[in-house]
C-alpha cells in the first residue's frame, strides 16, 4: 500500500482523482423491506411508507422520492400528514412521535426530522394511559389528538409538541357527559377511532373498543351524540356530509348510524355482515364514500369467513351491486382511498384504492370497469420471486429499447390506462443521458427487464423460461384453481409470488447483446438458453443440444439434481425474447459463468465441471473442456445436496440454541417483567465468557494445489486479440480467478463485440502489443500478449487482507473537462469496500466503504455499470444504487411545495402550471397507447439490424482467407477458479 501512496502524492493526479471519483449512495430502488405503516397526503398527493427498521419513504410523481431514517431503530406504526402542510408525524412502536418536514434547500426539497416527543401521563399513571393507539391531526394543523389505551384523548400542539393538558378528553369526562342509560356499562377501554367531522372542525368522533362511539364537541366539551354497538369496535368513519357514521366491528359486521343530535339512536340504521352467515373475522378498517351516481363505495379490510377464508388477506370493494374481494398474496399493512380533495365538493367520487401489502404496493383504478390494477412507476416488487442474479447493460440502442417496451406492453394489457394517481411534487432531476437496462434473474425461471436509467426502476418486460420445460404444475390445473367458488368473490391481485414450481428453473447467469438482441440465459440445472428478440408471437421447436462437460473423465457420479425435461414439440412463445436453442450441460450442475459473442454467434458457458463453446448459428458444439480435478468431490454433488446439508446444520444449531434456552425460560417467573432483561443479560454474559474460553482460531496454512483445484469456472471472456495457439496460465497463488480483460495497444479495454460495427466505439488498436489482465480474488496481474509474460501485478490480499468479489471495467468521465475520461477497474471486496484500480498500471486510486462486511448477500448481489455506478441488494426487495463517478449520478432531486398544493386540490381539472411541466395527468391513456403499438419505425429498425449483422458476417468471413493465417486473433478466453486462464483459439 505504502508504495502506492508514495507515488500517489502527485498533486495533479490527486486533483484529477477528485474530478473523476466520488462515492454516493444515491437512491434505493424497489419495495421497502418490512413496511409497517402507510400515510397519504391528499393535498400534497404524496404517499408515505414507514418500515419496521424505522425508515420513512415518501413517493410522489415518478422521480419524486424522499427517505428519512429515525435515529431509533424502531418500527414506524403510523404516519399522518398534517393537513395542507409539508409536514408529517410518525408514531413508532416505542410510543414516540416524530415530526418531519419537507424543507426547500437550494432549490430542492429535503426531508428532515424536526423534533420528537413522548407522551407523558400524570405521575403514577399506568404506562397504558399514554400508550397511543390513534392519532388525529386536526385540520387546523395546530393540534394532534392522541387516542390512548386508557381511553383518554390527549391534545398536543404542533410544532413544539406541547401537551395541552386542559383539553385532554379523559374517559371519565366523557362518561360524565353521557346520558344516564349509557353509563351503565364498561364501554370505554382503548380509543380505536378518532375522526374529525368532515364539515365542522369542532366535532370529533371518538370510538372506543368496547363499542361506544361519541361525537364530541371540542368547544363545548360535551357529547353531541352517542352510539352503542353490541360488538367490539375496530374502526369508524364519517360520510362526507357528516350525516352518517359507519362503524366496523370484530365480528365481521359494519353498521351505519345516522347522525342526528336531536334524537338518540339506539340501533344502527343498518347492520350488515358482508361475508356471513358463518362466523367472520373482524373488519379492521372501513371507507364509506359517496358518488355522484348516488350509490356509495364501501371499501373494507378483512371480514372474511373465519373457517374457510380466514387466512386470506383481503380488501373488499362494494359498489353498485358489484362486490370484489381483492385477495393479496401477502399481509395487508394498510390501505387508503384516493378521492375528491376539495372540501366544498358534494361527493367523494373515489378514483383509486391504494393498498400497502407486506411485499408490494397495489393500486386499483376505481373508475374503470372491473377495477383493474394500475402499474406503479416505482416501488416495484423486485422480489416477486427471489432474485438469483442480475446483469446490467448500459446505453441500450433506441431500437432495442423500443422493441423491449413493445414486448412488455403485450404483457401489461391487464393494467388500467389511468395515469399514476400519486403525482405530487416535481422531479427536477435531469432526464437520464442514456437508456440503461437492469436484468434480474429469478428463482422461478423468469428474467425481468428493468428500466434503470433514472430514479424510478420500472419493469419493462418479463421473460419466462418456464414454457421450454416440463414442470410439475400443469397449466390446466392452474386454471381449475382459478375457478374457485363464486362466493366470496375473490380476485387475486399483485405480482408477489414467492413460490417456485421447481428450484432448478432458477436463473443463474444472464448475458444480453444490446446490438444484436441476442440473449443468453443459464440456470440452476445446467440449462443454457439462447434467445432472440421477435416482435411477433411464434410457435417453434426449441432445439436441444447436450454438452458433456465431463468428457472422458472416468469414475464420476453426479449426485446432484437431475436435468430439467424439455417440452417436446413446438412451443408457443409470446412476442419478445424467444428461445431457439437449449444447450444442456451434463452433469446438470448450476451454470456459473456465461458469455455471448453475437458477432461470432457463439455462446460460452461454464459450470463446476468445465466449460463449453457453442455455435448457435450452426447449432453445433465447438469445444468442450473439462476443468474438474480428481480430488474435487464437491463438484460432484449438486448445489442442492449442499443446500440440504446446510439446512441440516442450521437445524442442528437451532436445536442446540433451543436446548440452551429452555432451562432459563422455565425458571423465569411468570408475570414479572422486570426480571426478564436481567436474566437475558446474565445468559448473554455467560455466552461471552464461553466465547472467551474458546476463542475463534484461524489456521494459517499455505494453499496447496489440491485445495484450489475446484475447476469451478467463474468467468468467461471473448476477446479479439493476439495469441499463439492454446495457452493455459495457472496462477500459483491458487486464488480463484474472477475477471479477465484484454487491453489494446493503447491500453484501452477492447470494445464489446459489434460495438465498433455500430460506430459506438473506436476500433481497438491492433498494432501495439495487447495486454491480458487476470484478476483473481487476491491479485491483479497483467501479462503481455501474444507472448505471455508477466508484466505488472497488484497483490491486494497480501496488502490489505481483502479479497476481490466483483470486478468490472468502468469509464470515468471528468466532472470538469467535458471530453476527458479514463478507463479503470471498479472492484468490490469481501469487506464491502469499493475500490478503483487504475488501468493499465494497477494503482489503487480510491477506496470507499460501501456495504457492511457482514452483509454477504449484499456483497454477492453487487453489479457495476460501465459508467461507474452500481447496484446491490439491501434487502430481498431493494437495490441500493451507488455511484463512483462525479459525472454519472442518478439521484432524486425534487421539489414539493405547499404552495403547489393549491393546484393539486382540484385534481381533475388540469391546472395550467402542470401542463407546462408536461405532466398532463388524465391524458395517460393516449401516451400508453402509443407505446403499445410497435410502429413501423421499429420494424424498420429490426430489418436494419439484421442487415448490419449480415454485413458484419460477410466481412468476417472474407477476412478469414487473407488474415487468418498470420493473425490468430479470434480467441475465446475462459477462466477457471482452479486458478487459471485458458485460451481457446
Amino acid at each position, binding site marked *: 500500500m505504502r508504495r502506492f501512496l508514495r507515488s500517489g502524492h502527485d498533486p495533479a493526479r490527486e486533483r484529477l482523482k477528485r474530478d473523476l471519483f466520488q462515492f454516493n449512495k444515491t437512491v434505493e430502488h424497489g419495495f421497502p423491506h418490512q413496511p409497517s405503516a402507510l400515510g397519504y397526503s391528499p393535498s400534497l398527493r404524496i404517499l408515505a411508507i414507514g418500515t419496521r427498521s424505522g425508515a420513512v419513504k415518501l413517493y410522489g410523481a415518478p422521480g419524486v422520492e424522499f427517505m428519512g431514517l429515525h435515529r431509533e431503530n424502531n418500527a414506524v406504526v403510523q404516519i399522518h400528514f398534517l393537513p395542507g402542510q409539508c409536514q408529517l408525524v410518525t408514531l413508532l412502536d416505542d410510543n414516540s412521535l416524530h415530526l418531519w418536514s419537507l424543507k426547500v434547500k437550494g432549490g430542492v426539497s429535503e426531508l428532515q426530522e424536526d423534533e420528537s416527543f413522548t407522551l407523558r401521563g400524570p405521575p403514577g399513571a399506568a404506562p397504558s394511559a399514554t400508550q397511543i393507539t390513534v392519532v388525529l391531526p386536526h385540520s387546523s394543523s395546530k393540534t394532534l389528538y392522541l387516542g390512548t389505551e386508557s381511553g383518554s384523548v390527549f391534545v398536543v400542539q404542533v410544532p413544539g409538541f406541547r401537551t395541552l393538558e386542559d383539553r385532554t378528553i379523559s374517559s371519565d369526562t366523557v362518561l360524565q357527559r353521557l346520558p344516564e342509560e349509557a353509563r351503565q356499562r364498561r364501554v370505554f377501554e382503548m380509543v380505536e377511532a378518532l375522526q374529525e367531522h368532515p364539515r365542522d372542525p369542532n366535532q370529533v368522533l371518538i370510538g372506543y373498543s368496547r363499542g361506544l362511539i361519541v361525537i364530541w364537541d371540542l368547544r363545548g366539551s360535551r357529547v353531541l351524540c352517542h352510539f352503542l354497538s353490541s360488538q367490539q369496535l375496530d374502526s369508524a368513519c364519517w360520510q362526507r356530509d357528516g350525516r352518517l357514521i359507519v362503524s366496523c366491528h370484530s365480528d365481521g359486521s359494519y353498521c351505519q348510524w345516522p347522525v342526528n343530535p336531536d334524537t338518540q339512536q339506539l340501533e344502527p340504521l343498518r347492520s350488515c355482515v358482508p361475508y356471513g352467515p358463518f362466523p367472520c373475522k373482524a373488519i379492521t378498517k372501513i371507507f364509506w364514500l359517496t358518488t355522484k351516481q348516488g350509490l356509495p363505495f364501501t371499501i373494507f379490510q378483512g371480514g372474511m369467513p373465519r373457517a374457510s377464508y380466514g387466512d386470506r388477506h383481503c380488501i373488499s370493494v362494494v359498489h353498485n351491486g358489484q362486490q370484489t374481494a381483492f385477495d393479496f398474496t401477502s399481509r395487508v399493512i394498510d390501505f387508503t382511498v384516493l378521492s375528491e380533495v376539495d372540501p366544498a365538493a358534494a361527493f367523494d367520487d373515489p378514483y383509486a384504492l391504494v393498498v400497502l401489502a407486506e411485499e408490494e404496493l397495489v393500486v386499483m383504478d376505481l373508475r374503470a370497469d372491473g377495477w383493474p390494477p394500475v402499474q406503479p412507476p416505482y416501488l416495484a416488487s423486485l422480489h416477486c420471486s427471489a432474485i438469483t442474479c442480475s446483469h446490467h447493460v448500459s446505453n441500450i440502442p433506441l431500437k432495442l429499447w423500443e422493441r423491449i417496451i413493445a414486448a412488455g406492453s403485450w404483457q401489461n394489457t391487464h393494467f388500467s390506462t389511468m395515469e399514476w394517481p400519486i403525482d405530487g411534487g416535481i422531479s427536477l432531476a435531469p432526464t437520464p443521458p442514456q437508456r440503461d437496462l437492469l436484468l434480474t434473474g429469478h428463482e422461478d425461471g423468469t428474467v425481468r427487464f428493468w428500466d434503470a436509467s433514472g430514479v424510478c426502476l420500472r419493469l419493462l418486460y418479463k421473460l419466462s423460461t418456464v414454457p421450454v420445460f416440463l414442470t410439475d404444475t400443469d397449466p390446466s390445473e392452474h386454471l381449475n384453481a382459478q375457478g374457485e367458488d363464486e362466493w366470496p368473490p375473490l380476485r387475486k391481485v399483485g405480482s408477489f409470488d414467492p413460490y417456485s414450481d421447481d428450484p432448478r428453473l432458477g436463473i443463474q447467469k444472464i448475458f444480453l447483446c444490446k446490438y444484436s438482441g441476442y440473449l443468453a440465459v443459464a440456470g440452476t440445472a445446467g440449462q443454457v438458453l439462447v434467445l432472440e428478440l421477435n416482435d411477433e408471437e411464434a410457435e417453434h421447436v426449441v432445439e436441444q443440444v447436450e454438452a458433456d462437460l465431463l468428457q472422458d473423465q472416468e469414475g464420476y457420479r453426479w449426485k446432484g439434481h437431475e436435468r430439467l425435461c424439455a417440452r417436446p414439440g413446438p412451443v408457443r412463445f409470446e412476442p419478445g425474447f424467444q428461445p431457439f436453442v437449449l444447450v444442456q450441460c451434463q452433469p446438470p450442475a448450476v451454470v456459473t459463468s456465461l458469455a455471448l459473442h453475437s458477432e461470432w454467434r457463439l455462446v460460452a458457458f461454464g459450470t463446476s465441471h468445465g466449460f463449453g463453446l457453442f455455435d448457435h448459428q450452426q447449432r453445433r458444439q465447438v469445444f468442450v473442456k473439462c476443468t474438474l480435478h480428481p480430488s474435487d468431490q464437491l463438484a460432484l454433488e449438486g448445489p442442492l445436496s449442499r443446500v440440504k446439508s446446510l439446512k441440516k446444520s442450521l437445524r442442528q444449531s437451532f436445536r442446540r440454541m433451543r436446548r440452551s434456552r429452555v432451562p432459563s425460560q422455565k425458571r423465569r417467573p411468570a408475570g414479572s417483567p422486570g426480571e426478564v432483561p436481567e436474566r437475558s443479560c446474565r445468559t448473554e454474559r455467560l455466552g461471552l465468557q464461553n466465547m472467551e474460553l474458546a476463542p475463534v482460531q484461524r*489456521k494459517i496454512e499455505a494453499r496447496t494445489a489440491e485445495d484450489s483445484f475446484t475447476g469451478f469456472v467463474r468467468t468467461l471472456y471473448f476477446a479479439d486479440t493476439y495469441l499463439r495457439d492454446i495457452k493455459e496460465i495457472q496462477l500459483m497463488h491458487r486464488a480463484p480467478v474472477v475477471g479477465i480483460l484484454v487491453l489494446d495497444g493503447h491500453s484501452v479495454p477492447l470494445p464489446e463485440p459489434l460495438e465498433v460495427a455500430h460506430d459506438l466505439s473506436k476500433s481497438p488498436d491492433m498494432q501495439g502489443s495487447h495486454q491480458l489482465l487476470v484478476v483473481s480474488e487476491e491479485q491483479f496481474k497483467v501479462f503481455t500478449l501474444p507472448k505471455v509474460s508477466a508484466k505488472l501485478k497488484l497483490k491486494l490480499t497480501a496488502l490489505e487482507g481483502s479479497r476481490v468479489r466483483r470486478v468490472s471495467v468502468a469509464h470515468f468521465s471528468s466532472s470538469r473537462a467535458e471530453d476527458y475520461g479514463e478507463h479503470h477497474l471498479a472492484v468490490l471486496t469481501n469487506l464491502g469496500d469499493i475500490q478503483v484500480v487504475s488501468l493499465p498500471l494497477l494503482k489503487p486510486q480510491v477506496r470507499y466503504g460501501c456495504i457492511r462486511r457482514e452483509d454477504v448477500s449484499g456483497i454477492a448481489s453487487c453489479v457495476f455499470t460501465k459508467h461507474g455506478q452500481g447496484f446491490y441488494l439491501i434487502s430481498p426487495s431493494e437495490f441500493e444504487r451507488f455511484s463512483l463517478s462525479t459525472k454519472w449520478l442518478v439521484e432524486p432531486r425534487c421539489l414539493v411545495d405547499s404552495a403547489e398544493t393549491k393546484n393539486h386540490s382540484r385534481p381533475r381539472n388540469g391546472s395550467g402550471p402542470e401542463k407546462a411541466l408536461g405532466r398532463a395527468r388524465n391524458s395517460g391513456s393516449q401516451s400508453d397507447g402509443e407505446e403499445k403499438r410497435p410502429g413501423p419505425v421499429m420494424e424498420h429498425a429490426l430489418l436494419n439490424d439484421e442487415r448490419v449483422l449480415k454485413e458484419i458476417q460477410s466481412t468476417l468471413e472474407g477476412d478469414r482467407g487473407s488474415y487468418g493465417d498470420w493473425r490468430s486473433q479470434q480467441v475465446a478466453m475462459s477462466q477457471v477458479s482452479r486458478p487459471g486462464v485458458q485460451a481457446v483459439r
Partner: protein
Amino acid sequence: FGAEFRRFSLERSKPGKFEEFYGLLQHVHKIPNVDVLVGYADIHGDLLPINNDDNYHKAVSTANPLLRIFIQKKEEADYSAFGTDTLIKKKNVLTNVLRPDNHRKKPHIVISMPQDFRPVSSIIDVDILPETHRRVRLYKYGTEKPLGFYIRDGSSVRVTPHGLEKVPGIFISRLVPGGLAQSTGLLAVNDEVLEVNGIEVSGKSLDQVTDMMIANSRNLIITVRPANQRNNVVRNSRTSGSSGQSTDNSLLGYPQQMEPSFEPEDEDSDEDDIVIEDNGVPQQIPKAVPNTESLESLTQMELNLESGQNGFIPSNEVSLTTAASGTDTEFETRVPNQKLLEEDGTIITL
C-alpha cells in the same frame, strides 16, 4: 540396521577423499548399495555431518585419538539430530550471550545436509526494530512442512496519547507440532502479531489477517511482540525510549525506521504461475521489463503513457528459462489434446 558397531583404523596423515571413505564404510559394514548419512562427534560433543572432503578432513584432523562415526540409513535419517543452520545458530549465540543459563531445551542442535541446505526462517531487521519486537521470516516454499500455526483475536495494552488503553489485537493461539512455525522456535503461543509483511494489522479483522498471511504464505514475514520478553536483545545504542519492557510504545516511536526495511515484494517468491502451452516442456515465462519492483520506472511509465506502451520485449528470455528455481517461474507446458482443439478451433475463426 539396528545398532552395529565396527572399529577400524585409518591413516591420519593420508585420509584420502570422502568418496573413498564412504566406500570404505560401506565395505566395512557390508552395505554396498545402501545410501547412508555419515556423522561424527566433534570435540564439543556435537554431532556433525561428514559429506564432503572438507568436513571429512576436519573430522579426521580433530580425532582425539578416536573418531566416533555415526552412520544412518538415509531414508531413516533423523535430520534434526544434526546441528543447526547458521541463522538459528546466530540466534542461539545471541541468547547464549544474553542469558547463559537459558539454553534452549532443544535436545539437538540442527544442521541440515548441505545439499538440502536452505533457510527456513530468519530474524530480520533487528537493527531497526524496537527490542520488544521480533520480525520473523518464514520460508515456506520448498518445504513440505506446514506453516503450522493458528491465530486468534485478543486484546493488548498499548501506550497511547491518552494513557494506557486496551486495544484489540491478533495473537498466535496455537503451534502445530512439527510445523515450520514451531520448528523455528521464533514464534510462540500468545505472541502478538503486529505486522504481516510490513502491513500493520491493527484495525484489521481476524479473517483479514488470516487472508493476508495466507496470501503471503510463500514468504511470510511476521512482526510479533513475543509473549516472553526475556529473550530480547538488549541494545544500548538506541536513544528512543524502548526500555525492553513489555509495553508497546514502538508503534508510535519507530515508523520511519521501519519504513525502508523491506517492501512486501522485495523478494517475490510466490510468482510461480504456470503457463501451459503447446511445446510440451514447461517453460518459464520471462518477466516483462519493467516489473513491479522498479518503482521509478513505473512512475515514468505513467508520465510517458503514450510512448511507453509499445510492447516490452523481454530481453532475458533465454537466461530465465534455466534460472534457479525460486525467483520467477512461469512455466509453459503443452495442452495434451492440442490437436483436437486446433481442429475444432478453425470453426471459431469465422
